[in-house]
């Protein structure tokens, strides 16, 4: 067993309205950051776990995303697994 650190990025589906992203976009424009074209707001989760191999850690983390951490109807996720 080895310790792994997993970073999970959960983002709202591109096709769906993201009102938080729009509000942040408006605020950035109000502050003079006129170059900003599009903003989307998601979630970033960091967790530590023990697994025999990096692949096993990835498999477990994917299972966690599929069951709980991301909603398959509205969100996509990406994982980054590294030795802790």
């Amino acid at each position, binding site marked *: 067993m080895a310790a792994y650190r997993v970073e999970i990025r959960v983002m709202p589906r591109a096709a769906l309205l993201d*009102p938080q992203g729009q509000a942040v976009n408006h605020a950035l424009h109000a502050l003079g950051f006129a170059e900003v074209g599009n903003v989307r707001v998601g979630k970033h989760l960091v967790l530590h776990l023990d697994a025999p191999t990096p692949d096993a850690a990835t498999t477990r983390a994917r299972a966690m995303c599929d069951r*709980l951490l991301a909603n398959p109807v*509205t969100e996509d996720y990406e994982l980054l697994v590294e030795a802790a």
Partner: protein
Amino acid sequence: MRRVAVVVFPGSNCDADTLDAARAAGADSYYVWHRETDLEQPDVVILPGGFSYGDYLRSGAIARFSPIMDAVTAHARADGPVLGICNGFQILCEAGLLPGALMRNARLRFLSRPVRVRVEATDTPCTHLYRHGEELVLPIAHGDGRYVADERTTAELEAEGRIVWRYIGDNPNGSTRDIAGICSAGRTVVGIMPHPERRTASIVGGTDGARVFLSLEAAHATQHAGDVRAVGGHHLGLR
């Protein structure tokens, strides 16, 4: 008198109003704590509104793994009526008992005000005492009420007449196809964002929500009458 189980999660806050509304309609309603695994043989299960687990992660995402949810799912799979109101609707979607999901209101604000909805399906256990097309005023109180589902699912809901309530006039939260409530393919699992339990007496502003609970209570009588007819028609060989 039907047995109506009102499931209480940590953060539920419409459980008492829901229990009272069912009781006022004639039901024997009782609370079941989410840590329990037995619903005590209910006829109807209601998941009330509130903020289960503080809406952490996503509304309803953690509550749907509460121990009682296995029994709720079994009740639904056996065609037992299940009604999810507001946070209850969110939990039913997270649990996969209803399709789609409820996302942050399009204009981000938490909305607490009366809205107009139209009853578009009267063949559910919650709406059979309403007239098709009847317009109601019910209060909403939610931050995550924007119903979304993929195109195929919404087209299916539309085609199968599973959009039970639709917002009329102003769509408060940006919900797809003005959806305020839907039902399952079997029609026994129903979810609604507005709060019918808050409109069951004139003294609190109206009675438009009362028939949701009267419908659930009267379903028993209907079912019973159906049983009698089946016996009369088939088993006894009568015409």
